[in-house]
Each structure stands twice: as structure tokens, then as C-alpha cells.
């Protein structure tokens, strides 16, 4: 394979894997923000909790990796409902500043708790044999784990698209994102809808955190460092839009990977520059409405 084509394939492949993680974590944030306008900066902390839970389950309790991921998703979704019912719901009608402060507070608490338990060194897990190694595609090989992430991501895109576009629940969510008052007045219980999407979104964040373990390595600063990327994806995609979140995750994931491949050292710029350029051209995001 010619070297240039090889680099392009690497960028697209790694970018796609990265984009899938970004999408999985961000989609819940986008929908909950679209529904209630709640600025949840603790979303990265939920993703981090999912990652650490996966670490503990596989290492200390000997749960297989995939099983650990599933348990982490369910556990974090359940925990998130507790937070939503006790803390978040008090601030639905409060100002954005209050929501930002509460969720920054939660993030700091989470960082402190996870530093206390796991220490500041990066944690990772041993992958099962069927996910380690490389897959030979004929013209070159690809790391199996990234192929797995892409597969999980694409499967989730399909499932979420179906749930969003083809079920009654999805129709209710779309209606509530479009116009909350109108949705309420035709009898949709938006509060319950929010709790549900919040739980699903946090569960997906936990899944993203678990998948990200092997890509980024999990440290307590994950909740802050990657939060910025999740927020970028949500803002660039447009609040409450599945299509937008996917498009934003792809654009930002691939641009970021390209930047890091092509301009080592200076590549960190690219993701911010692209995001700012898109937001300046389309303030409401790729698929948002003004």
C-alpha cells in the first residue's frame, strides 16, 4: 500500500473509533440538554465512573470485560437516577449558572473520590484474547479492539436511530425537544421522559468510559479533560439532535486524529479550531435550530 494512502486509512480508521467513543458519551448529554436545557458538566464524571467500575469489576472480581461493561452501564444508569431525583431536579428551573456550579461541584467530588480510591496513575484493563491483537483485512491489519469499538458504535447508532425515529417514545422525546410546553400540554410527561433519557444517557456515558479505558487510559482528570470534547460535540452537533451529534462526533473525531497524525505537537489545536469555525458559521450547531 502506498504510504500516503496508508496514512489516510489510518486517520479515517482511528478517527472513526475515536468518533464512536465521542458519540456514545455525548449523545445522552445532547438529548438531556435538548429536553430540559440542563447544563450537565458532570456528564464526564459519569463516563469516568463507568470506566473505573469496569476496571474494578474485571480486575478485582474477575468479571469478563464485556460483562463488566454491561454491569457498569446498568449500575451508572441506576446511580444517575438517584442524582437526578435528589439534586438535578431542584435546579430544572434555575439559571444556567446554578446548574453549571452544581455539576462542577459534583465533578470535583467525583474526581476526589476516584483519586482517593484509585490514585492518580492511569488505569487500564487486560483485554480478553478475542479483542486483543490485529485483524488482517488483506491489504493491511487493524487493531481488533478499535474494530470492536466501531462495531459497537455503529450498532448503537442504528438502535438509537430506530428508537428515536420509529418508536412512540422517540416521537415523544423529539416532540419535547422541539417544544416542551406544547408537548406537556398534549399530555406528555416531560419530567419522566427526562429521568429516562438521563438514565440512558448516563449509562451510555459509562459505556463510553469503559470503551475509552484502552484508548486513553483512565485517570481522575478524565472527567474534566474529556468533558471539553463532549461539550464540543454537543454544541457543534446541535442540542437534542441524534444526527447532529453523530455528524459532530465524526467531524471532530476525524479532524482531531488527522491533526495528531499530520502535525505532531501542534495537532491539539485542530479540534478547537474546527469546532469554533463551525459554531461561528452555525451558532445553533450542525443540526440545531435557532
Amino acid at each position, binding site marked *: 500500500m502506498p504510504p500516503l494512502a496508508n496514512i489516510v486509512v489510518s486517520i479515517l480508521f482511528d478517527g472513526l473509533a475515536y468518533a464512536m467513543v465521542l458519540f456514545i458519551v455525548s449523545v445522552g448529554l445532547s438529548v438531556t440538554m435538548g429536553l430540559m436545557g440542563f447544563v450537565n458538566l458532570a456528564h464526564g464524571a459519569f463516563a469516568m465512573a463507568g470506566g473505573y467500575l469496569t476496571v474494578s469489576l474485571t480486575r478485582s472480581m474477575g468479571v469478563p470485560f464485556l460483562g463488566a461493561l454491561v454491569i457498569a452501564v446498568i449500575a451508572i444508569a441506576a446511580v444517575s437516577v438517584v442524582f437526578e431525583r435528589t439534586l438535578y431536579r431542584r435546579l430544572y428551573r434555575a439559571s444556567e449558572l446554578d446548574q*453549571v456550579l452544581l455539576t462542577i*461541584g459534583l465533578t*470535583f467530588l467525583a474526581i*476526589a473520590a476516584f483519586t482517593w480510591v484509585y490514585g492518580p496513575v492511569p488505569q487500564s484493563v487486560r483485554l480478553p484474547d478475542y479483542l486483543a491483537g490485529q485483524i488482517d483485512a488483506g491489504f493491511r491489519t487493524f487493531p481488533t479492539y478499535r474494530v470492536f469499538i466501531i462495531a459497537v458504535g455503529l450498532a448503537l447508532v442504528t438502535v438509537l436511530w430506530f428508537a428515536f425515529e420509529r418508536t412512540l417514545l422517540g416521537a415523544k422525546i423529539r416532540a419535547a425537544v422541539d417544544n416542551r410546553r406544547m408537548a406537556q400540554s398534549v399530555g406528555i410527561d416531560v419530567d419522566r421522559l427526562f429521568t429516562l433519557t438521563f438514565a440512558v444517557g448516563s449509562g451510555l456515558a459509562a459505556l463510553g468510559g469503559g470503551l475509552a479505558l484502552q484508548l486513553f487510559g483512565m485517570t481522575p482528570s478524565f472527567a474534566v479533560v474529556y468533558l471539553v470534547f463532549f461539550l464540543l460535540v454537543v*454544541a457543534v452537533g446541535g442540542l437534542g439532535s441524534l444526527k447532529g451529534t453523530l455528524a459532530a462526533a465524526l467531524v471532530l473525531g476525524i479532524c482531531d486524529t488527522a491533526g495528531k497524525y499530520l502535525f505532531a505537537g501542534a495537532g491539539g489545536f485542530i479540534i478547537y479550531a474546527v*469546532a469554533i469555525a463551525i459554531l461561528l458559521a452555525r451558532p445553533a450547531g450542525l443540526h440545531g435550530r435557532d
Partner: protein
Amino acid sequence: MAATDEIAVAARARRFLAAHARLRPTEALPWLVAVAAFFVFPDRLTFGSQVLVMALFALSLDLVLGYAGILTLGHAAFFGIGAYTVGLLAARLDWTEPLTGLLAAATCAGFAGALSGVVLLRYRGLTLLVLTLSTTFILQEFGNVFDRVTGGYDGLPGLSFSPVLGVFDYDLFGRTAYLYALAVLFVCFCLARAIVVSPFGRSLVGIRENTARMHSIGAPVHGRLLVAYTVSAALAGVAGALHAHTNAFVTLSVFDFENSAGVLVMLILGGTGRLYGAFWGAVVYMVLQDSLAKFSPAFWQAGVGLLLIVTVLFARAGILGLVEAAGRRLRGGGP
């Protein structure tokens, strides 16, 4: 008839402004405390000057967040620009005179504020949050890429500055640094106070409370916000420059999210939209940080997280809000 009405309205407006501008005796308290601290804690003056620097930083944030209602998570950008202005001037150009350094820092940070404000202030909510955050991270990446000039993540260590006013040299006990920081803080406080009690400052509050109405009475909303943002950026730049002066080093960590979030927490703790909230918030935050971080950094982080949650849920007006409520109750005016 119309003429007397106008006169009456103008008189009422003047009385309203004068009532806001009047100096209250309690306003002397922070300054007395700051001067007393100089004599009571002679061995903690280095820490004291850090508190004063952060108070100035929080004050600059109060102008945009507390008065104009602009929610930003990227104020560390201007603090960092100020710090790197004096740092680079001293390390690369041998420009070590502190006061002109402060002016240069204010100019650079103010210019950056005006430039970014023209674009950013048209946005609200999540988009504004994301854009301000991204701007800060871009600056950090920028500093990292040009590490030959900026020193990268190692920063600019061991800066040395000329004596303040050519006379007062920095001493080992931080006496000069403390008084220097206090003097700069006082001057900036007077400036900020003059701004918020002016008709301009009142119109910022109007924008915060009801932007649509300010538009409809013909106030140039974007222009006012831009001026406030620029002044605030310049003050944050001065705070950053003071930080570099008193610490004698700068690193790229000034652009960290923790710095933007920390100053926000200080302001919230003290109380927004009250000027002096910045002062008391910085004192409480820094003292707590100093005493809790001794046990472990995680301990402090948990403490600040808990403090933030409790403040938001139960004491939204901050320490000064609690004090005011207690004062009203004592006077028998009810809660």
C-alpha cells in the same frame, strides 16, 4: 408640565445613582483586615499576596458574571495572557519594570478580551460556555507549540523583576509583594466600583436582569457587554501579571480549567454582583485550600465540590448574602 416631569425624573435618577455610589462604613472592613493581616501574620505574607491576587481575579469575573450576567468558563485565558505578558517581557526582552509590566499586561489582556468579545458575546448558554472554554485551551496549546518562546509546560521559571517604583525590592518574607498586591488591588477595586455605580454599571445590571427590555428601550446591549468584557479582561490580565510578579514564575497551568473554575467558585462563595464578594470569597477559598490540601489534594477537591453544592442549594447569595440576611434579621426587618 412635561418640563417639570423631566426635571423630576432626572432628580430621581440622580438620587438613585447617588444612593448606589454612597460609601458605606462596612466597605472599610476588607481593607482594614488586609492591612491588619500584614502585621498579624508576618510569616504568611507570601500566601497573603496569593489571596490578594485571586481576589483581584475574582473581582474581574464579578464585572462580567455578577454584573453583566455573562456566563464564562474561560476567564483564565485573560489571567494567563497577563501572566505571560510580564513573564515573556522579563524573560525574553529584559523588561523587568513591574508597573509598566502591569500596564502592558492590562493592554494585551484587554485587547484579547475586546477581540474575542466581539465574536463570543453574540452567543449565550452552552455555546458561549464551550467557546470560552475552547479559547482558553487553544491558548494553552499555543503556548505548548511555541515552547521555544514560552517554555512549554515547564513554563518560565525564576523570573526576576525590578524593584517596585524603583525603590521597594522583593524580599524573602513577601512584605513588598504583599503591599504591592494590596495597592494594585485597591486601585483596581476603586476603578471597578466607579464602573458599577455609574449609569453604565446600572445598565449592565439591566442587561443581566432583562436583556430583551434593555434592547427595547434602545440600550446598545452588545456594545455595553463588550466594554464590560474588555475591562474585565484587562483586570484579569493585571491579576495574572501580579501572579507572575509575586511568584516569579509562570507555567501553562494558568490556562487550566481548574483556574477558571476556581475563580468562579471564589466569586460564588463570596457572593456575585457585590464587588466585595470577590474579596471574601478569595479569602475563604484560599484559606480552606491551604488548610485542607495539607492532608491531601483529593481532600481539598472533595471539600470544594461539597462547598459548591451546598452554596448553590442553600446559600445562593454567598457569604455576603448570608451576612446581609442576618443583618436584616437583627434589625427586625424579617428574613
